[in-house]
């Protein structure tokens, strides 16, 4: 047994987190910054963080992940990291020539109290930022929230520091992407294009973290939201924030700064959340839903009806990030499944409240989020009440193997399979893919354990 020391009996813990269902802020900020065209993410802290964050993103995407670091030493840790950041900015612009450097902090620079706004202003005053180039920043202390918080903070930084209101509104709709995969962002853009809605999606990591093999390394791949697009978000007629935890703060910031009204939606994962997204987009754009989208929806419902016997009543344990697991839980309920145990390491009242609403249909569910809502607890819950399916990131495979549970990889990070960054989980096509994945593992299990005389050809 890989997790042989996990006891069945659950005891409350206050000091120890075991097998976390979250990681820390800066990796989220790094991921968000990669969704700006021509951007180099910069980690203001000691270099270990930057190395770990790049490695984890790389293992997930099997793609280059570029970022620089202030490389704090003990001296800088005592006297402040201003000199390190100023030196970084100079070296970065002369060697790597980005359009923008997006700086985030770590627990080190946050504990010291380095003021990123003041340091970037000094860089600008000292003439270290070339004309037409930018340095933006977001404070991302690792001891607050999770990687999702870091993502939200960097996306908010983009909105606050780039958006400009010229006083003339355009027909454009801002779509603030919650933490989703490049394939998901591509799918959102494709839906908007089918609907003939004029949108700007930010951040946008498609064509950045799923770049083609061409024999040449593009240090700044062709994807990413451009600075001009980011500036234009201040004039857009409205914003749709996809995810109340990872996307809404940026929409609020745009509303505050440039009076862009916003609506917050669940990330469009599964049928119902996609329905709401399509309706909101249609309404915002003033365009009808095209027949092709209605037909795609119909195909998803068709499969749900055709295969209903394999879903109904099956117990599911899931873990992951708020904006993804909220609509996923709702989708499981739409499929007739029973989301039984759910954890997320990310804290937050907004998240808890929305989750409660969704779980009104599932009063039996165990749900917890925040500090001690870890995978150790999830595993203990599973030991006490076994499930038929486990959904979560790669770390779930240890539980899946020990407890012999069919397992669907979903969320971040997925370190041991390919597909998550190429095939969407959002929209109706994403819903179809999730159905296929869930059915695949459930049926594989049935095939593996069925008695010979009960082994089925047709399922």
């Amino acid at each position, binding site marked *: 047994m890989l997790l*042989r020391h996990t006891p069945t009996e659950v005891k409350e813990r206050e000091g120890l987190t075991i097998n976390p269902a979250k990681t820390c802020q800066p990796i989220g900020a790094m991921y968000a910054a990669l969704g700006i065209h021509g951007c180099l993410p910069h980690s203001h*802290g000691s270099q270990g963080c930057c*190395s770990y964050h790049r490695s984890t993103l790389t293992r997930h995407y099997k793609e280059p992940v570029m970022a620089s670091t202030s490389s704090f030493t003990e001296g*800088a840790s005592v006297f402040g990291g201003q000199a390190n950041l100023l030196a*970084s900015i100079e*070296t970065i612009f002369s060697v790597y020539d980005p359009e923008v450097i997006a700086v985030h902090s770590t627990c*080190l620079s946050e504990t010291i109290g380095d003021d990123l706004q003041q340091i970037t202003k000094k860089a600008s005053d000292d003439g270290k930022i070339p004309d037409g180039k930018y340095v933006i920043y977001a404070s991302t202390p690792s001891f607050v929230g*999770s990687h999702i918080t870091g993502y939200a903070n960097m996306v908010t930084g983009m909105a606050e520091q780039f958006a400009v209101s010229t006083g003339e509104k355009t027909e454009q709709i801002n779509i603030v992407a919650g933490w989703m995969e490049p394939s998901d962002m591509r799918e959102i853009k494709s839906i908007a294009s089918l609907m003939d809605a004029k949108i700007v999606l930010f951040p946008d990591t498609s064509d950045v973290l799923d770049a083609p093999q061409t*024999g040449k390394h593009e240090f700044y791949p062709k994807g990413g939201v451009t600075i001009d697009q980011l500036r234009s978000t201040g004039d857009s007629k409205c914003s749709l924030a996809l995810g109340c935890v990872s996307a809404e703060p940026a929409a609020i910031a745009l509303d505050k700064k440039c009076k862009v009204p916003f609506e917050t939606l669940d990330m469009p994962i599964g049928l119902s959340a996609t329905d709401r997204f399509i309706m909101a987009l249609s309404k915002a754009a003033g365009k009808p839903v095209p027949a092709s989208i209605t037909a795609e929806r119909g195909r998803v419902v068709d499969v749900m009806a055709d295969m209903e016997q394999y879903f109904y009543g099956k117990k599911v344990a899931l873990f992951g990030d708020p904006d993804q697991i909220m609509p996923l839980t709702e989708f499981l309920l739409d499929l007739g499944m029973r989301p039984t145990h759910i954890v997320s390491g990310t804290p937050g009242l907004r998240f808890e409240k929305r989750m409660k609403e969704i779980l009104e249909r599932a009063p039996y569910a165990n749900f917890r989020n925040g500090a001690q809502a870890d995978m150790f607890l999830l595993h203990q819950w599973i030991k006490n009440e076994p499930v038929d399916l486990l959904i979560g990131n790669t770390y779930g495979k240890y539980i899946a193997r020990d407890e012999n549970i069919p397992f669907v990889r979903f969320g971040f990070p997925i370190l041991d399979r390919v597909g998550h960054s190429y095939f969407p989980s959002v929209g109706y096509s994403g819903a179809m893919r999730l159905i296929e994945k869930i059915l695949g593992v459930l049926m594989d299990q049935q095939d593996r354990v069925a008695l010979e005389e009960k082994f089925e050809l047709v399922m």
Partner: protein
Amino acid sequence: MEAKVLIPDPSRIKEELINKYPAKVAKKRSKSIVINDPETVPEVQANVRTVPGIITQRGCSYAGCKGVVLGPTRDIVNIVHGPIGCSFYAWLTRRNQTRPEKPTDENYITYCFSTDMQEEHVVFGGEKKLKVAIQEAYDLFHPKAIAIFSTCPVGLIGDDVHAASREMKEKLGDCNVFGFSCEGYRGVSQSAGHHIANNGVFKHMVGNNNEPKAGKFKLNLLGEYNIGGDAFEIERLFEKCGITLVASFSGNSTVRAIENAHMADLNVILCHRSINYMGDMMETKYGIPWMKVNFVGAESTSKSLRKIAEYFGDEELKARVEAVIAEETPKVQAIIDEIRPRTEGKTAMLFVGGSRAHHYQDLFSELGMTTLAAGYEFAHRDDYEGREVLPKIKIDADSKNIEELKVSADPELYKPRKSEAELEELKARGLEINGYEGMMKQMQKKSLVIDDVSHYESEKLIELYKPDIFCAGIKEKYVVQKMGVPLKQLHSYDYGGPYTGYEGAVNFYKDIDRMVNNPVWKLIKAPWEKAGAESLEASYVAS
């Protein structure tokens, strides 16, 4: 057989590597980029602070301490004191395999433990939460040992992990609790963490178990972390030869074995950088000499086994070693004979941690491949130039706060394993005791040696040299492959291995053959993009 590869003029290439840097950066980097001459090894600047913003591949002290040295011991509960990230990123990402004897034996490697520090702990201190976490870990698992690792904010807010550990050790009674001040900002790289880990393991573990271990020719394997099963292969060879492994630092290791390490008669060191401190301290305190060995490469493996037999000076052992070599090498030879025609004359570059950039050059020369350039992320001058430069190395301001333990001979346990005369005789027979000659003496004249290579420099190197394979880590892997050059990860082995010993050599030959001759590299250009591609405007003609 030396491969004949023309090495381009390195001084022009060095210029190219640094001319884009701001003047101060160029000046500094030029000291870390040297043109090798194995006869008169030039001085290389190493173990100095990283240039901010340059895109280094380096990690931190915490990674060197917890991730590298302590991580592989299966029955320690390693609690990371800090916010969640440090613990999460080091969770199962280094492939330290371990094999408990019984399915019920302790193994905590699959777990990730953290105090998950929150804002209130940064403001009011985290010691209380740390002690609660230690108690909870003890109540849940009753481990033999709990180790605490400090991360960046811990040092700044003044949490005393050592005092908390002492207090909890006393309270728990039957559990060894100890802490490490391995905050990420200490030193300039992972290297500081190795040193801190060596000190802690030496102080808190080695010497705690005085039971003599049965068996002949007792040694410890130092600086072998069992990535992809490397230590398993070495264990297999030791067992075949009749050599007794007392403790491994720290691949596939246990607390009890490490506590017993001082009962061995020899330390053999694989990764000099991470564990040479332990070798020196154990010699001073217990009288155990150490010897540099290398189990990467078939020839190096045979050579190292012979060195061990020579050290013990036992005829029966020598005969057994020869028998094992005679049994193992024909299998390796058969594979190399088949593969070498496909790899002969190709070129490689290696930029890896603090050890492998040297050792893997042996495997490449067995494949008939030439190493054009190599370097470490965080090695020191002795790893490049040999230990004879140690007296000339000045410890700079960034590393001076890393503790040097004052070690003296143990009044009861010190026992020189070899007399002065015996050591002299071994040296006269060519056995280097407590020595390491470094990487550069083995590399060709005019090859480039680059310390702490930056992203910019490695891209330039690939552009200018067009090597057939580049060896580095996960952060470099997909960058280099986008350029059409295969990258062999020499940290994770791309999830394969082992690469040590005879079995490992065969695995490596096959992997390199597969990578440099893979059909995918010829498929990068779409047919319609190739020069001279037929016009797509041609129309079908009815036949």
